[in-house]
């Protein structure tokens, strides 16, 4: 689960990570209130930051929500210094409009929250992140002197500028590792000392919050030699959400595809894609392989959909409903490998679901495994527009024919 910058910062702050201070607002009229609260803390410079689940906000463009064409302003993050009027005007302009960045795709994302924050004067931008290194099954801390740019770019162009430190699970993060990172980042004096506290707190937060990634880019050295997280990106391990019940309120459903939310309510794992052939499969690996075979058959997959182990009439019907909301779908391929689940049961489910719904496109149903023959008979004798197949190759041929 992805978090917004303001949410990530408030969590990190609880662990003692020094973060840029600020207040999140959802309506522009709250802007003045936020500014006066920040002023009470002695803050006199301001920055306004759009909160969306995508990077590249500063270099993004804000478009009018009603026509999506009219450019309102360049930049989804802006520094205004003491110019509160300018900041207020900007806040009014961008809130509830569409921010397009290189990570959002051309459709962009609606800015529904703004983070009105302290404008800091700093002399250096650095990079720091913590994530799992899958190749060794240990967490790795990555740091770089090249802050403020995408780490992928640094990794590709100047990999020697990335310092990595692996944390041993049995002993956890150690002080010497903090020093190693600080020396690598050429930190001195107070910044060096500050960083030791910063990184220890950040690692503790990473572990205890069950995050799959924490990225602070940039982490800055302020003019008075303090280390502060200017930005923060935190992703929570979905598998661990059961022990963080309070995180449920941090979920921003506006950031998720409504169809994907709908699917998850029926325990279906659905991801919308841009193609013309919908598919419904049991198991994630087979679902990916089915998408691949759709492409080989001359189509493009319209979705990823894993119905899980059971594939009952109800799940199949829900699957159909979700696939059919996509107007681009010209054919559907159902691919179920019945091992423990019996194919004749799945076939009955498919027939029943097809009767309940009026399916306007050809449906190729490939059932393999236990009772596959009986299943084929059920489909063939249903009198419905269901095209049966037993092997994957046959299913692919029938999809090609259906698209022709």
């Amino acid at each position, binding site marked *: 689960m992805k978090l917004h910058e303001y949410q990530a910062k408030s969590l990190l702050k609880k662990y003692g990570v020094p973060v840029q201070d600020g207040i999140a607002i959802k309506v522009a009229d709250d802007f003045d209130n936020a500014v006066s609260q920040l002023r009470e803390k002695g803050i006199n410079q301001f920055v306004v930051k759009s909160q969306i689940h995508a990077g590249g906000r500063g270099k993004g463009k804000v478009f009018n929500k009603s026509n999506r064409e009219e450019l309102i302003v360049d930049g989804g993050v802006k520094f205004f210094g003491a110019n509160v009027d300018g900041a207020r005007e900007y806040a009014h302009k961008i809130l509830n409009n569409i921010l397009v960045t290189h990570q959002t795709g051309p459709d962009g994302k609606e800015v529904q929250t703004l983070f009105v924050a302290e404008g800091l004067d700093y002399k250096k931008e650095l990079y720091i992140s913590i994530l799992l290194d899958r190749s060794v*099954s240990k967490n790795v801390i990555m740091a770089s002197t090249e802050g403020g740019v995408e*780490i992928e770019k640094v990794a590709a162009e100047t990999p020697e500028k990335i310092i990595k430190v692996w944390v041993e699970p049995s002993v956890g993060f150690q002080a010497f590792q903090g020093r190693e990172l600080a020396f690598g980042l050429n930190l001195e004096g107070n910044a060096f000392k500050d960083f030791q506290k910063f990184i220890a707190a950040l690692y503790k937060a990473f572990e205890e919050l069950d995050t799959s990634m924490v990225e602070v880019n940039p982490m800055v050295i302020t003019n008075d030699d303090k280390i502060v997280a200017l930005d923060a990106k935190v992703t929570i391990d979905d598998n661990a959400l059961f022990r963080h019940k309070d995180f449920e309120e941090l979920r921003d459903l506006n950031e998720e595809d409504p169809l994907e939310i709908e699917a998850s309510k029926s325990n279906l794992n659905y991801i919308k894609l841009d193609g013309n052939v919908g598919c419904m499969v049991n198991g994630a*690996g087979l*679902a990916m392989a089915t998408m691949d075979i759709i492409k080989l058959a001359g189509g493009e997959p319209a979705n990823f959909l894993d119905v899980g182990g059971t594939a009952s009439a109800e799940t199949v019907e829900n699957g159909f409903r979700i696939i059919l909301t996509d107007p681009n779908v010209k054919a559907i391929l159902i691919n179920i490998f019945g091992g423990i689940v019996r194919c004749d049961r799945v076939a009955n489910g498919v027939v029943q679901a097809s009767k309940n719904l009026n399916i306007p496109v050809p449906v190729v149903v490939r059932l393999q495994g236990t009772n596959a023959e009986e299943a084929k008979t059920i489909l063939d004798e249903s009198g419905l527009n269901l095209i049966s197949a037993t092997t994957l190759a046959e299913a692919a041929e029938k999809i090609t024919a259906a698209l022709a």
Partner: protein
Amino acid sequence: MSILVNKKSKVLVQGITGGEGTFHTTQMIEYGTNVVAGVTPGKGGTMWQEKVKIFNTVKEAVLETKADVSVIFVPAGFASDAVIESAAAGIKVIVCITEGIPVRDMTRAYDFIQSIDKNGDEISLIGPNCPGIISPGECKVGIMPGFIHKKGKVGVISRSGTLTYEAVDQLTKLGIGQSTCIGIGGDPVIGTRFIDAVKLFNKDKDTEAILMIGEIGGNAEEEAAYYIKSKVKKPVVGFIAGKTAPPGRRMGHAGAIISGGKGTAAEKIEVMKECGILVANSPAEIGLTVKIALDAKKKSLKAKKSDKKDKKHDKKAKKSDKKTIKKKK
């Protein structure tokens, strides 16, 4: 005839009294697996379906039954504890079926197992989030449908569940049997990786060819491919699912994600081909590709044999030449 599990394996089921545990224990016993014990804390001393003795702890179960393989069906929140309990009790092959275990828990369990490994006491953890392991005709430890398998000489390693069944089914229908099939699981942190399973299959004299079914995310396939290039003489066939998967999205499995442009199917396929692995282009052709690899191996063996014959022939010919020369003299 197999790796890790065989007809001598004594299997212990952790979470035997739960729904999943009960269902799959029944299936395993039906397949012929020797299930010697169950563990459900608090139910020790009772019997599971009048067939299997239940213990409170893995330690007690191992002491009394000499179980050497465990299979875990406990819920995600308790599963890493179950893995560590098995490892601490001296179980050698731990199969964790449970899906949805937090990564933080698994990194610790994995580390614990590594630390035991370093003492020379090797443990194979399979999974989590996997279908398990089966040596056809001998022992099934997991949730795969037993009937699709056939005893034979191809070792199968896969990150997926149903896609493995698909591949195995294709093999069996072509008359190609399997020595052992391992589902290594779709999580970011897993015990036995492709490279570990490849090493075991390479050593197993009854495995003649290896089939590796991978998917997007991580670089475990590449790691195994480089090992294969340098150390494995047996034919290896591969398939990677997710050529059409978009970047940045988790495709069902927690580990199946292209992140920062890394872990794409194209990247993996390229490395595998470069390392001499025959890669199936379509998931419908996995079985066929294994057949091609096996046939090619047979041909080259025949060619070698006839080469040897030819050489012998040559030697004889040379000898007889010499003789004739001598005679002439």
